[in-house]
């Protein structure tokens, strides 16, 4: 079931991991039109009984992930992705500056290096597919369409922020863009991701009486896979047949701990799915085209069969875990090795090599983006701090004691009108 989407290039550098990183498929990839166990799995729980005897315990056939596509999206899509990735990079460069200038407080975890993951996965999904992630969340929000102005204002703790300055860097929410956070506790978003999938499936099938139409994308770091919540979420997603894809953004380190130091089976994380009868795949997360080629059929399969999947998305964060991290646990050579795989450079090269863009086109794009983010910083600076009355607003939906209600209904109306698009 191990599918290598992309080349075997990922063998080096290795984060100092165990040498089990060979990416050759251990079994031949399956045919996604006939996923092995998908049709055998029960639709409802009431058809399931315990085994008749000890001898009745047997090997279940494995659910196999669909093959990656060979096709490449049209140049306009690629240009959009290049723009999205450059926008995220520039946003992060300016957020780091803002943090150093004390315009942003708290913790700041930047996404540099991992842009292809959010952009490729979200590019392969539909806009109505919910997205949830952990605290390294700026990239996902921007890829989902969040205006960089409101993202920057959130970092600055201003009223113009996506959460009116109440969430901060780790809690980016954008309900209109189906972006459900931004969650600060490692692994806590994984059951939420299962719940988003539960809800979309329930809405489609129970309330509207149709077929499942949505897939939830639940991103997590490699550090989250040792949390109980992750395993509980995978188990629930499998037994309840929830259309959710858990994307492990495997950047090699949970904070400063190399994955292999804290995680058994670190060289083959996708195998965590085996125990949950879930299909899984490993993807080169440093190349946005490869990400899309593998994620597109996987998302389609999960949508069609209303089933979960697990992805080991191999990537690297170019910066530290957070702004206070001096990265002493890894070598410069390792960093330089991965920096040569920069997903922005790789896509830019592809576009120039195929003649879709010239170096000047890309330079001009960069200039436009720098202007856009500079404007976002200026807009965020000009946005006022939240009024003190906001302190007791949005705690409860109703008004009692010191609490002054919420702006939720306004958002809910907007969301209702947005539903079903995309």
């Amino acid at each position, binding site marked *: 079931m191990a599918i290598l989407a992309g080349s075997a290039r990922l063998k080096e550098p290795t984060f100092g991991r165990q040498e089990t990183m060979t990416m050759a498929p251990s079994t031949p990839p399956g045919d996604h039109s006939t996923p092995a166990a998908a049709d055998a799995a029960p639709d*409802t*729980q*009431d058809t399931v009984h315990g085994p008749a005897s000890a001898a009745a315990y047997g090997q279940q056939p494995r659910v196999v992930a669909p093959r990656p596509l060979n096709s490449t999206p049209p140049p306009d899509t690629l240009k959009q992705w290049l723009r999205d990735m450059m926008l995220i990079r520039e946003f992060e460069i300016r957020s780091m500056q803002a943090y150093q200038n004390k315009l942003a407080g708290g913790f700041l975890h930047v996404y540099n290096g991992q842009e292809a993951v959010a952009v490729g996965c979200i590019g392969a999904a539909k806009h109505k597919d*919910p997205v*949830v992630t952990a605290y390294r969340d700026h990239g996902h929000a921007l890829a989902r369409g969040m205006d960089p102005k409101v993202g920057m204002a959130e970092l600055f703790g201003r009223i113009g*922020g*996506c*959460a*009116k*300055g*109440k*969430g901060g860097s780790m*809690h980016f*929410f*954008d*309900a209109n863009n189906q972006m*459900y*956070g*931004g*969650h600060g*506790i490692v692994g*806590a978003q*994984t*059951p*939420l*991701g*299962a*719940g*988003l*999938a*539960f*809800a*979309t499936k*329930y*809405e489609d*099938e*129970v*309330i509207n009486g149709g077929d499942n139409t949505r897939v939830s994308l639940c991103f997590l770091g490699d550090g989250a896979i040792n949390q*109980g*919540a992750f395993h*509980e*979420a995978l*188990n*629930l997603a499998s*037994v*309840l047949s929830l259309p959710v894809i858990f994307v492990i953004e495997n950047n090699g380190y949970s904070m400063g701990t190399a994955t292999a130091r804290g995680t058994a089976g670190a060289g083959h994380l996708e195998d965590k799915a085996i125990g949950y009868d879930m299909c899984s795949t490993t993807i080169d997360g440093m190349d946005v085209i490869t990400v899309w080629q593998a994620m597109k059929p996987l998302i389609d399969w999960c949508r069609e069969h209303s089933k979960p999947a697990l992805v080991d998305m191999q990537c690297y964060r170019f910066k530290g875990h957070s702004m206070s991290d001096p990265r002493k646990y890894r070598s410069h050579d390792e960093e330089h090795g991965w920096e040569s795989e920069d997903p922005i450079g790789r896509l830019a090269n592809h576009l120039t090599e195929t003649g879709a863009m010239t170096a000047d086109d890309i330079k001009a794009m960069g200039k436009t983006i720098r202007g856009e983010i500079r404007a976002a910083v200026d807009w965020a600076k000009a946005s006022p701090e939240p009024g003190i009355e906001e302190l007791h*607003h*949005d*705690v*409860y*939906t*109703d008004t*009692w*004691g010191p609490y002054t209600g*919420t*702006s*939720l209904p*306004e*958002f*809910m109306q907007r969301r209702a009108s947005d539903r079903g698009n995309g």
Partner: protein
Amino acid sequence: MVREIEFRDALREAMSDAMRDDKRVFLCGEEVAQYNGAYKVSRGMLEEFGPRRVIDTPISESGFAGMAIGAAMLGLRPIVEFMSWSFSLVAADPILNNAPKMLYMSGGQLGCPIVFRGNDGAGGQLGSTHSWCVESLYANVPGLKMIIPSNPYDAKGLLSSAIKDDNPVFCLESERMLALKGDVPEEAYDIPIGKAVVRRPGTDCTIVSFGRPVHFAMEAAETLAAEGIDCEVIDGRSIKPLDRETIAASVRKTNYCVVVDQSWSFSSVGSEVAAEVHRLCFDDLDNHVHRVHNDDVPAPYAWNLEQEMLPNTRKICEAVRACTYNA
């Protein structure tokens, strides 16, 4: 039409009424469907609503609580049954860190209309791990509401309100009261969250309690009446919001107050009520507020020790006598 039914039936009626009314409402938890509920609260619901809306979960509180919260973020209205609130401790992160904070952290973009319900307090010789009273732990968290019905009528009306509420509501029931019978109207009705009720009018001392110990307070009031102390018993019904006004109005009349709270005393619902009564009724009090709690020990197994630990009738009588000695 009013008929006499058990506490558990009243809870089920509230859930079933809500599920007939609103397709967004569903029930999930351990053994709620095929087994008909570990305590038969959800008996028959699978048959009526089917397995898509009455959902058996694995023993995975953190997982299914978090999953239900995710579903609520998207607009569904889950009811999550914890077989016991004691088991909710392994779901502390989702129920305390996600549900009550979602609205705030998202700046009002996403609500979390969800009900968590289950047995709270000593069930009868279950030992300390299964005898949690979570009210004082959880009531500390902003963003959630907490109800604690003491009889079938309140159970139906409060739970009905909880399911309609747009905020996370924790409903604390008691294994020891599930078979308690009481008059309950057949038709649906709501009891507002945050409103206490005077169970027994009196003139000499206010006893404030919540949930099962309300019954002990009522027994104590009868004993004390025979001694010439006429107690007014207030059933708080909700812990959050706390109905300070009803409590304060009573204390202004009686000038004495005893709080009976089945959780442990340190940083507790009881200490909160006492602090509020002191703040609101400082000039009306003829003695400081007295408190009756679980003894500050892990719940013991032995029957006699467990009974001694609980805020029982004898301890309430002693507290009222001590409080009103100068009357």
